[in-house]
């Protein structure tokens, strides 16, 4: 056989799983991100006393498809003086970073998206740090004064909060002792507690930093429409813009997954080691069955036949999946047991990631936006000192627990309190110069009265 063809086939044989995973990620994640956008719009509408997208498909469920089609068929506009290669490449880079980072995440005991890397979360954090490249290159390639300013602001924000996120994650790594995704989750099972409870300051800091990481409100100044400087996405239209946008939502999935894995127990159900709470395992099946029943009830109230059929289809899909869950349970059919841990784990993981993303969205609709200097001040003057002190705190707590044999919860409580107090003192000390300086600056040039 042709040696070239032979080597290609050998490659495929060895790597077909990874290739399949990559293909599935690229094919499915943008679609999922599109539906997260729909969820956001519906949630926003609900919190704002309105309905959201309703026209395209039943209750707007085909809206993402319509939007994707519209963006695909739009005219491809590139500014005249723009750097065409970089202009093309920048959103691709942004999307690639997010999708690649997703490859190392696992949402079930065997459901690693691509592989179980031994540096797991470090890989994820590192690859998602390539995201800002896409932003700054896009802003630069647009050949627009305001795009580059917006891009630089966005990059500054992202790298500042990456530092914070990194420090917060370190406190989690101290507790888990490993970077492997699977091992972190198992360690949380062994420790009988989610690390959010063992390192609460770290969790909160990571939560805030991850909001800033993904350019979400209240940290969305670089892309806010009502601000003076238009964002890096200004000159992008059509599908290029969609790549940026979907990259941002894919990034949201990534940070939510990292947060869930490290702080929220990954794919473990609540109280995984408490046996008498084993009935919680029936929850996925029951929830899905309830959703199916609700769809059946609503199907009767739909005005049109198409909508009725759609609701029935959704209902039966829910019942089908619920059935699979039920059958895979330990008490049921043996051959399906192998998918049981993965299935249930995936369910809990997805619930936690959804809750995390729900908090993102909730904050977006509720809080106003930070001004850029306030945003940077929050990152550098408040969160980084707090995160640093937190690392110390967690380290001390571990030393107290394993070295001196203290009760775990007592040690955590004391060190957390001490961390918060020490952090606040550090912030106050750090900030006194900044506050004084900004007051002086604001007081100065405005004295002159408006007398001609």
């Amino acid at each position, binding site marked *: 056989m042709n040696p070239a063809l032979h080597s290609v086939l050998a490659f495929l044989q060895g790597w077909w799983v990874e290739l399949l995973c990559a293909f599935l990620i690229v094919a499915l994640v943008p679609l999922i991100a599109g539906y997260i956008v729909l969820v956001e719009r519906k949630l926003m509408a609900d919190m704002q006393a309105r309905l959201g997208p309703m026209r395209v498909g039943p209750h707007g469920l085909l809206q993402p498809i319509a939007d994707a089609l519209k963006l695909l068929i739009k005219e491809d506009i590139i500014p005249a003086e723009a750097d065409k290669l970089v202009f093309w490449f920048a959103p691709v880079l942004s999307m690639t970073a997010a999708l690649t980072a997703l490859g190392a995440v696992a949402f079930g005991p065997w459901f690693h998206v691509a592989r179980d890397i031994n540096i797991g979360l470090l890989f994820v954090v590192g690859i998602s740090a390539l995201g800002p490249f896409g932003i700054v290159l896009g802003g630069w390639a647009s050949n627009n004064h305001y795009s580059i300013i917006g891009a630089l602001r966005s990059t500054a924000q992202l790298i500042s909060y990456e530092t914070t996120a990194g420090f917060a994650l370190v406190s989690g790594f101290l507790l888990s002792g490993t970077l492997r995704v699977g091992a972190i989750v198992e360690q949380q099972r062994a420790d009988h507690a989610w690390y959010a409870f063992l390192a609460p300051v770290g969790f909160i800091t990571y939560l805030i930093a991850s909001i800033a990481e993904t350019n979400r409100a209240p940290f969305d100044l670089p892309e806010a429409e009502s601000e003076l400087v238009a964002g890096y996405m200004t000159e992008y239209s059509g599908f290029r813009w969609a790549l940026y946008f979907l990259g941002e939502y894919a990034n949201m999935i990534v940070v939510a997954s990292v947060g869930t894995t490290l702080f929220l127990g990954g794919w473990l159900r609540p109280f995984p080691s408490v046996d008498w709470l084993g009935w919680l395992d029936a929850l996925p099946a029951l929830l899905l069955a309830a959703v199916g029943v609700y769809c059946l009830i609503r199907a009767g109230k739909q005005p049109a036949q198409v909508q009725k059929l759609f609701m029935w289809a959704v209902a039966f899909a829910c019942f089908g999946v619920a059935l699979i869950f039920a059958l895979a349970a330990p008490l049921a059919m043996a051959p399906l047991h192998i998918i049981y841990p993965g299935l249930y784990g995936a369910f809990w993981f997805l619930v936690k990631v959804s809750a995390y993303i729900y908090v993102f969205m909730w904050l977006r609709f509720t809080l106003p936006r930070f001004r850029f200097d306030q945003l940077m001040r929050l990152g550098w003057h408040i969160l980084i000192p707090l995160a640093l002190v937190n690392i110390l705190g967690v380290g001390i707590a571990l030393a107290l627990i394993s070295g001196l044999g203290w009760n775990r919860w007592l040690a955590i409580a004391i060190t957390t309190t001490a961390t918060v107090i020490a952090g606040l003192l550090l912030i106050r000390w750090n900030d006194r110069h900044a506050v004084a300086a900004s007051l002086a600056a604001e007081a100065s040039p405005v004295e002159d*009265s*408006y*007398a*001609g």
Partner: protein
Amino acid sequence: MADESKAPQSPESSQPATPGATPASPAAAALPSPAAKPAAAPPPPVQVPLENELTRRYRERFGRAILDAIEDRKQAILIVDIAQFLEIARYSRDTEKFDLLEDYTAVDWPRREKRFDLVAQLYSFPNNVRLRLKTAIGADQTADSLTSVWPVANWLEREIFDLFGIAFQGHPGLKRILLPDEWQGHPLRKDYDILQQDTAWVRENLGIESGQ
């Protein structure tokens, strides 16, 4: 327009105010009302000369520059000489405590020799009184800017310049404000015909005859 004098529900017994009667409204009357009117006499004049403490002080201070003091519908008006307008304004703000220039505008009387009337509406916060200063100014004269007395006059004078063409001396940046900078003409003058200007523009820029 609908028949405004017949309200759908007015009973015959109602006695709405006739046009000649003095209204009882506690509105902008700043100063004591004129003498009481006879019962069925002809309607009283709406403009009466004004003599009170305020006018006495002004006349004392400025003498001949206060050309006239009248009260129109119970609102005090001082007609002053343009030459001392700025000083009167300063005196009004500093001594008489008229600290708010509520409005500043102009009126065009094209058949008069001094074509324009500058009208400044003043209000005093401490005394809760209003005063109107009017001064006549010719089309070729420049007025003194009041921005040194009340900074609010900045845009108000720009608007007067824009729409009437009265120039103000001492204004920090006198240029058109509502109309584009290159506009020709001053629209609020009585000899400015909107229709004429519009048809001229259409003829010049579109090359057709306006259908208006």
